[in-house]
């Protein structure tokens, strides 16, 4: 086995050994135990209602031949149905769902947002999707809860108990050798009730039990995690806001981002104008004013040399101001974009510090807004690559397919692009999100880096 292989195995072994002692394991056990009431609530309630009703109806004419007659069964089923509807309508299921969410949030760190509050009115409460989804969760919780009980009860409980076998064998089974005692069953994951497939009759046998216990305890956190994971999926899928509410939240979030983005861009623009072109023009005016003075009002020129120098400086100020304004205008809207994305990207690629190869294949032209976003994404990605990647070559691929525009920028640099470090990449991702696009980053340390931005063809 190679060195990395050996290191990998050692790390794996360490994780497995340490797993039963972690806080996460303890929290998951607690979650399973505290979640029990939710799992048994509905079955108990349903059981209570139906059986009670069936018993109440045990006199004639309901009962025939000792079994409940079909009217009794029908009545019980109707009662169960009514109970379900009542639970949803009164908002009881929502409250239980809130409790489940709270439990998951507190113990598992699984934060699921609450669904929007129900609208008022009888009909609205009856058709309250979130309430019904909560009911579905409570019904599905039963099998999940059984799985959790299996994990906690058998693996943890019986496993820990098995560890104690050597101890109490010594304490309680030290009868004189003539007394014959039945063998002691050991609970394993495969026969819970100790039906006797694994039985020990001697003291050394207890060590076998101990070994089984160790195995069970080592496996326990993983089984619990699996059970809890199933529960988490249910909670996330059923107890959160519905797809419409989720979409609304998404839209509100991206709208806020877009508004902030726009405000920040305007501020930057004002700053650039103020610190760049404006002050160059002020200096230019100052130089010309001084030059006028050096030239005098009429007649001979008092200081021609100084005047020449000042006029020359003013000339340079004017040229610099022009260049600044041109750059600024390009930063607001590159004129090349009016001819379409391929032309604009070609200009961008040609002017890039690192040689960039461009391939464009867009059968359907996107809307101008999307083209603008794609252009600025490409510009920012190229700038990032130039600044951080130390690449020798960049390829830009733009393809349009199935209503989606895909912009891929690949470089052969050192990789390690991380949206968390620096706001450039995360800002791009946000901008893509505002039009329901996305950004995928593949940048392992050592490179190469491939960033793909997907945008719909029309915003």
């Amino acid at each position, binding site marked *: 086995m190679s060195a990395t292989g050996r290191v990998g195995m050692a790390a794996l072994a360490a994780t497995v050994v340490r797993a039963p002692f972690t806080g996460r394991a303890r929290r998951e056990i607690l979650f399973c135990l505290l979640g029990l009431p939710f799992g048994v609530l509905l079955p108990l309630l349903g059981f209570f209602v139906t059986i009670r009703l069936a018993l109440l109806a045990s006199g004639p004419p309901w009962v025939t031949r000792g079994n409940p007659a079909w009217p009794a069964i029908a009545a019980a089923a109707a009662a169960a149905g009514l109970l379900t509807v009542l639970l949803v309508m009164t908002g009881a299921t929502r409250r239980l769902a809130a409790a489940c969410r709270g439990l998951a949030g507190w113990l598992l760190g699984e934060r699921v947002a609450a669904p929007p509050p129900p609208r008022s009115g009888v009909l609205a409460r009856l058709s309250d999707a979130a309430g019904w989804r909560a009911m579905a969760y409570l019904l599905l919780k039963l099998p999940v809860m059984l799985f959790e009980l299996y994990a906690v009860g058998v693996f943890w409980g019986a496993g820990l108990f098995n560890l104690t076998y050597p101890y109490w064998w010594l304490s309680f089974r030290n009868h004189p050798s003539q007394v014959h005692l039945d063998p002691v069953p050991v609970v394993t994951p495969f026969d819970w009730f100790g039906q006797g497939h694994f039985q020990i009759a001697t003291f050394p046998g207890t060590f076998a039990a101990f070994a089984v216990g160790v195995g069970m305890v080592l496996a326990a956190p993983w089984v619990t995690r699996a059970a809890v994971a199933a529960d988490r999926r249910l909670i996330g899928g059923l107890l959160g806001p519905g797809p419409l509410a989720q979409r609304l939240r998404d839209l509100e979030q991206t709208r806020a981002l877009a508004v902030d983005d726009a405000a920040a861009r305007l501020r930057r623009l004002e700053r650039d104008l103020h610190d760049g072109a404006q002050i*160059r023009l*002020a200096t230019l005016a*100052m130089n010309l004013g001084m030059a006028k*003075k050096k030239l005098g009002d009429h007649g001979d020129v008092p200081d021609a040399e*100084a005047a020449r120098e000042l006029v020359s400086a003013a000339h340079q100020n004017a040229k610099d101001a022009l260049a600044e304004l041109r750059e600024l205008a390009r930063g607001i809207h590159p004129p090349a974009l009016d001819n379409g994305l391929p032309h604009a990207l070609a200009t961008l690629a040609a002017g890039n510090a690192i040689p960039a190869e461009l391939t464009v294949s867009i059968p359907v032209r996107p809307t101008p807004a999307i083209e603008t976003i794609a252009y600025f994404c490409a510009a920012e990605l190229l700038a990032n690559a130039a600044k951080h990647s130390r690449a020798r070559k960049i390829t830009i691929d733009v393809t349009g397919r199935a209503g989606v525009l895909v912009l891929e920028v690949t470089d052969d640099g050192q990789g390690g692009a991380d949206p968390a470090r620096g706001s450039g990449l995360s800002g791009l991702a946000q901008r893509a999100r505002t039009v329901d696009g996305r950004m995928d980053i593949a940048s392992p340390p050592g490179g190469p880096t491939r960033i793909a931005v997907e945008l719909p063809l029309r915003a």
Partner: protein
Amino acid sequence: MRIVIAEDVALFRAGLTRLLEDEGHVVCAAVADGDELLAAAARHRPDVVIADIRMPPTHTDEGLRAALELRRTRPGTAVLVLSQYIETRYAASLLHGSAAGVGYLLKDRVADVAEFTEAVSRVAAGGTALDREVVSQLLAASRHAGYLDPLTRRERDVLALMAEGRSNAGIATALVLTLGTVEKHVASIFGKLGLPASESDNRRVLAVLHYLKS
């Protein structure tokens, strides 16, 4: 005159230094932020400090705050703040209390060398120099409200220049009138608007501004 300049854009700072030195003043120090300004003012004790309002690190009002600090700690130092845009709040805080030795001008004014240097000298001598943009904003508000209706057109021009902080002589030069005519206009303005008489030009500025703002 000994001057300290504070301006973060090197190009403009160099141009301003040259302009003032050409006029025969001494630029003791040319710094680039508010803290350095206070240090240089303490070290060189200039007659007047010319400061850009927007400077690092926050690029909001460092220069203004340094100027106000200087007015507090070194009352004998005249302060002229430059800005690329007019913010009437800044003007108000600068003129708070006293208008002596205070100026607030747009950077555009440096295009006219004579006017700028005259303003610098006026401020250094204890007078006031308010940019005509600030004044015209205030005048526009008052004119809209009808306060200035009693005045003639000429009197309104004189009022504007008074609000800028010019002396009677300065007004006479600017409007190409005789000194006597200007004095007559000034007296008429004070009478028509009911302004209290004031001995010095900078107190006059305060009186006028107070009237215009109310």
